[in-house]
């Protein structure tokens, strides 16, 4: 969806959070009657992650130290300088505020700068290699309806596939499919990052569903099937080197959307099977959240045991909205809606043997 966003305030456009912190430092410096030796007390009372707050603080202090001797001070600690400049990070529905209370002869001056909350939205598009039990593969603002990994080429892979790194179609290599409301995107995993192979939009299709309905599956002939409300598509792997993936779609009338999609609800197992070469036996990954309002966790449960006898767990910052086993059954892909950042994250969840 293309947006011509015009949401930043006049003074904020094209400013990074660090620019804004520097601007506040200059405004505080310009305040009259400020003694040369001041200490700065920095606090974060907003939902801004502490790591971001620290970056802002360091930027502010660096800019501020140009003209003033200062002592950075923890909240509540006794003042070590003539005056204390109190800077706090606060928030409104649309902005973060950096608010400085500056001592002056006339009282306390208040100086503020604001920066849009969107300045801190996730911009990364690849994981940072968390390898214990989960690995962030992908993060985006647009909804992810389904994430599946299939080995392509070789037995069980899409028919007629030949090795071609440019299309992600090297024989037997796993390929990750991310289903968005407007397109299916094919990725290849290189070490800890995903590289986009091809994006195939659903031309002329308008996605309408509150329940993030949509699924990717593998057909008997090895092709990839995609089902969305009112649409069924078939995705074929390249037959020869240099070719691209081919997507063909057809409208599929659903007489009663509620019934058709609600039918899936009955099959709401919320668990998948998982195996690991180093651990004999069979295991299940079980999601525990009851709806999409709460952070979720995946429990690792021996297939022969009950849920409350989980041997390990992985926490997430939001509900696990979709869980799918990789083709080899050794790992799973989890689509998580991060309740703190509003991003859709795709994790690979694996059993890690030993330390």
């Amino acid at each position, binding site marked *: 969806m293309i947006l011509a966003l015009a949401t930043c305030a*006049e003074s904020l456009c094209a400013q990074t959070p660090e620019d804004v912190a520097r601007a506040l430092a200059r405004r505080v410096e310009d305040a009259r009657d400020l003694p040369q030796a001041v200490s700065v007390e920095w606090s974060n009372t907003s939902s801004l992650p502490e790591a971001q707050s620290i970056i802002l603080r360091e930027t502010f202090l660096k800019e501020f130290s140009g003209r003033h001797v200062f002592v950075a001070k923890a909240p509540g600690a006794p003042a070590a300088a003539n005056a204390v400049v109190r800077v706090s990070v606060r928030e409104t529905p649309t902005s973060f505020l950096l608010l400085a209370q500056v001592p002056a002869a006339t009282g306390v001056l208040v100086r503020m700068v604001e920066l849009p909350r969107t300045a801190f939205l996730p911009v990364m598009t690849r994981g940072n290699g968390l390898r214990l039990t989960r690995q962030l593969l992908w993060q985006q603002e647009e909804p992810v309806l389904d994430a599946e990994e299939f080995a392509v080429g070789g037995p069980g892979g899409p028919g007629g596939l030949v090795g071609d790194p440019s299309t992600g179609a090297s024989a037997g290599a796993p390929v990750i499919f991310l289903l968005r409301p407007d397109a299916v995107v094919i990725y290849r995993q290189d070490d800890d990052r995903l590289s986009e192979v091809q994006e195939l939009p659903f031309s002329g299709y308008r996605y309408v569903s509150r329940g993030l309905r949509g*699924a990717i599956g593998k057909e*008997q002939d090895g092709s990839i099937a995609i089902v969305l409300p009112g649409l069924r598509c078939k995705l074929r792997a390249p037959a020869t080197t240099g070719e691209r993936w081919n997507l063909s779609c057809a409208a599929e009338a659903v007489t009663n959307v509620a019934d058709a999609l609600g039918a899936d609800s009955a*099959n709401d197992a919320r668990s998948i099977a998982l195996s690991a070469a180093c651990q004999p036996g069979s295991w299940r990954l079980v999601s525990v959240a*009851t709806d999409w309002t709460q952070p979720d966790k995946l429990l690792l449960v021996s297939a022969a045991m009950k849920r409350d006898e989980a041997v390990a767990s992985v926490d997430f910052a939001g509900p696990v*909205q979709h869980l799918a086993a990789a083709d080899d059954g050794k790992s799973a892909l989890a689509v998580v809606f991060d309740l703190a950042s509003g991003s859709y994250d795709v994790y690979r969840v694996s059993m890690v043997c030993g330390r």
Partner: protein
Amino acid sequence: MSSWKRTRMLAHPRTKVRPRALRRLLLTASPGERPARITCLLILVIAFTCPASRAATAPRYGGTLIVELHAPALVLDPVAWKVGSPEDSANLQMAAAVFDRLVTLDRFGRFQPALATEWSHDAAWRRWQFTLRSAVQFSDASALTAADVAAALQELAPGLSPAKPLVTANANRVVMQFPSPVPDLLEQLASGRNFIYRRNPDGTLLGTGPFYLAAVVPAAGNTFARYEFAGNEHCWSGRPFVDRMQVALGVPILRQLFDLQLGKAHVVELSPELVRRAAQENLRVWTSSPVLLYALQVSTESPAASRGDTAAARAAGLGEALSLALDRDTMANVLLQKQAEPAASFLPQWLSGYASVFNTENDVTRAKKISGALFAPAGAQNAQQPLRLRVEAPGDLARLIAERVAINARQAGIAVQLQSRSTVVQGGGLQGSATQGTSPAGSTTLAANNASRAADLGSLRLIAWRYYSLSERAELDAMVSALQLARSDTEAPSPNAEELFSREQRLIAARSLIPLVVMPEYIGLGSPVRDWMPERWGAWHLADVWLDEKRGDTATPANGKAQP
């Protein structure tokens, strides 16, 4: 078979389990091996039937959501609402289920496209252009046009801040031209009464939202009046999860709690005094950010011109004395049982970000000194005449707060007489309570017929203000306008945080409105309610709610009977 099911089967064609083979597998095992084989079979079944699954329970469609409200009637026409009125809170929630906005704001501070998919503005922030989503239909399946959008915005334009725009429609675009910069237009359009609708010739409204009003069933005998909403199959954002929504009106707060306990209602309003009880009974309670402000408005109706005072100075003195006398901490923590927060500013912290810079100073000694100086010149007899305190905020809670105000004022040497109002304040949009009466607060309760002499000393109003806008500037403008607070002509209509802070600081210093406490909205939720994901500023998002009838008690989708 649905397309969804077919996909799953195609993806996993190996899921067939032959009963005969299963029996053979079990029968050929020794008794000791059977449990292990059964386990293996179960694992195989899980492995082949659930290679991909919905994780945290996926939403389900169907059912009837039962909502109970205290409000005796619903007014879905945004034009009829009064800015800041707590009475219109229910109207806003229900209108949001029926109408859409041009844009919405999500909890992460992102403006999301709704009926508008693109927007832009000129460098001066005066001309805004919105491109409309195509193929949007009203609930009667007629198409939404740019003219519909322009007409609705034109009707609602007087409520936009700082000035009314000229709205024009052109193909699939709507242009709003303002006489002064409006950088916070998106915040305004994403909140308040700025919904898009089509007004029919008979005055009724059509919406594009997830529900439409299917029936209005008036109260009859001992049943409550109710509005019945049905899911809009034409909704561009998808039909709601529930099929229908029944909204019972005029349900007493205590009755709502009982209905929630008995599983007869899914969503009810809770008053602050019932929140603790609900929590003790393990009921689900959702709390918004503080959205309701109780404040004391001070005015000198008949300035003491004979004494040479100006009305403003007198009001400011009285306001300062009262402000210092008021013990807001006790109001919030004892009287309201920690269900409210002391307020020192007009705008709440969650909206302005700077509210906590203001202090709530409680200094009775200084208050006494100021009130002494204020009343002494008038002579001993006049000094004893009480100030009238009209309780214009609705509900019993307002009376409790007013009584506390009277007690605090008396401690500072200011006599206060409580009055309730049954009339509606024109322009202010703040409805009075329907009852008449005087306070039981000891010596502060004086005869109502002293009013004429008290007018010489000024009057007080206890008001409640419901925050509606996501624009701090628009909210403050609305407050200043509706409550007729002093407003300097030199103030620039800027949404800049620092300028807003300075402006609010001046307004607070004028003491014509003394903030008392801010209070959140409390909603009780039935156990089947899932995906209750309101915004912290109070928007409910009823279309996203679904019912998990397997897990929770089932609400009876019938109108409950009123208790005798």
